[in-house]
């Protein structure tokens, strides 16, 4: 039974991997549920032993994967505070924001007793919640697009520029227009706490 501590690079990688997989599935699911793209491009696949909808469109998949690939090093070092999926209308004004607040407990060690299946279970719950979130949401106007924002702690972005990965897939500082929503209504959807990671999903929607 190996025990990994925070200092182990492996630990950070494991958590980052888990989170990035989860975020990928979550983003695909959000795109499906909110009808950002026509449902024809989605295909039912299996994740955490439940069916989820994933897109088959290669460019979309590539975009999402590149995005998460860049986010992964931030999560490894625990520098990513929030990952936000923003749904914007045609004029690039945010309509909805799905905020994933990610935090990792500082003094932490995982052992094989921390069953990953427990984490799976919790992530499954978050995914289920996304699937039914349109109960509280109105339909989006047509022609919506999405974007992914990452809020980092301190000044992690300065280091990011040096990373090769970022050079191939450049990130820019987000416009205020895209970031701020006027008078949003916040709806916490799901909190998931486990030994290795804590994820809170909050939905912010514009009040019409």
């Amino acid at each position, binding site marked *: 039974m190996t025990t990994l501590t925070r200092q182990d690079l492996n630990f950070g990688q494991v958590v980052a*991997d888990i989170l990035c997989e989860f975020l990928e599935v979550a983003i695909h699911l959000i795109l499906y549920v909110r009808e950002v793209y026509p449902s024809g491009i989605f295909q039912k696949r*299996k*994740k955490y032993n439940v069916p989820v909808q994933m897109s088959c469109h290669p460019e979309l998949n590539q975009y999402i994967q590149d995005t998460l690939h860049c986010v992964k090093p931030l999560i490894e070092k625990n520098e990513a505070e929030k990952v936000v999926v923003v749904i914007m209308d045609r004029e690039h004004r945010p309509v909805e924001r799905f905020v994933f607040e990610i935090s990792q407990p500082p003094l932490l060690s995982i052992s094989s007793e921390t069953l990953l299946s427990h984490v799976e279970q919790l992530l499954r719950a978050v995914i289920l919640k996304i699937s039914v979130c349109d109960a509280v949401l109105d339909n989006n106007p047509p022609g919506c697009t999405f974007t992914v924002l990452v809020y980092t702690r301190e000044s992690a972005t300065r280091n990011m520029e040096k990373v090769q990965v970022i050079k191939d897939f450049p990130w820019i500082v987000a416009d205020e227009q895209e970031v701020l929503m006027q008078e949003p209504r916040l709806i916490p959807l799901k909190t998931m706490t486990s030994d290795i990671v804590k994820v809170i999903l909050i939905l912010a929607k514009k009040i019409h």
Partner: protein
Amino acid sequence: MVTYKWLSLTLGVHVNTAKQMLYHYLEQRRKEKSGATLHATYLVSGKCLENGSMCHKVSVVREEKLEDIKSKLDMTVSIHVYSIQKSELKDSGPLYSTDYDAVKENLKNCNKYSAIRCAAAVPVSSGQLQRAQEKVLAAAPDTEGSKPGLNDHMAAASKISVKQPKGIMGMFSSKATPKSEEYSKEVKTEQKDDASPAEGAKTRPSSKADALSKFFGKPADKNAATDKPDKNIKEEVEGALTSLSAVSKTQSHSSPEHKQSIKEELLKNSSAAKGDSKDTGNKTKRLEQSDSEDEKGESQKTKRRRIKQPQPDSSDDEVIPDSPPVPEPQTRSLENEVKKEPVSHQEILEGKRRKRRRVLKSKTFLDDEGCIGRDHFILCTFKITAHLNHESVERVTEKGYESESYSESEDDFKASSYPSEDSVSLKQSLGKREEEKKLKEKGQKKAPAAANKATKQATIFGFFQKK
């Protein structure tokens, strides 16, 4: 979201009580007319005439479609509330997710509250269970050994396997209804059978067949294939095993594309039973190609990631020869067991795999251990991962020129990233693979550019030589 099954397991009540609870709640809330609107799904079952035969259809439908479905059925046997949720469901996935955890916790007695009973469904003794498990593991590399309970309770198994595919499929497409018909047929046939060890093997192929037919959309074939008496299944399983070992010997060059084990088992059954392939040529090819795959991994109980996408086949169909000596290939496959994971990663490069195999056949490359010939692919993968360090320095230069031309095609694959699910569980082999890639890239720069189409196939295997 609340399904009746979840409610019954959570509250510890009989399913019929749960269904009634849901119904009353729905009525009450709708009468109040305040608050959020509730959506409901219903489970409808009844008889209808289809393709000239009377069939029993069970489907889960949204409320709007309820009347529609009812009118299609000649005789409606039952309707009840399946689930209630606030949001309008686009997709049946969440219905399954809701139940998943509750069912998992009560796996052994998840049918405690169910209304379906079968006197013949008694838990098999552990000895019988073991035998059944061995057979199933030999026949299909299914790694769901964690659910032996499902095999024990036929009623439970058929109920659950029927329910899940129904839930997933019953909602939208018109294809769903013929399939649900065949599931209910299977429920009946299963219930008629006596409890025996073969049941364990049969229930699994049947429930797998359900999932499989979903993917292929050919209910007629699958239904016929699975509605067999026990004896037949037993024979098929054994016959399949010997034919598998045969195939692995002579067909090591065919593309062992990474299919679901379900597919393999089912195709095996159908082709073995029917003599010649009643299925389309495609499926037979898949069977043959997946057989060698099958043989390598299956009896070794290694968990491997199954890639769901059906893969394009071409050529390479060889008739499965008669059974050669069984023990020999099996021992060989024992050696290969450990190497299953890196091999499965290779399979992700779909079409390329086949080419790689062909290369080996034509080339007689010098193996340290002097293994030449067709089977060497199996042994070579073993060697490659085992002797990462010292082995093929010579090979780097030999195959150097080949790897150059490989890069063209390889680049395409680099762009398509690996399924992200790989990272956690197959981290190690992925790490190895990335090493391979890096080494290959370095090798390419040194190698002379001798891009040649004929050697392109060679390069793909050359990729694996260079460590």
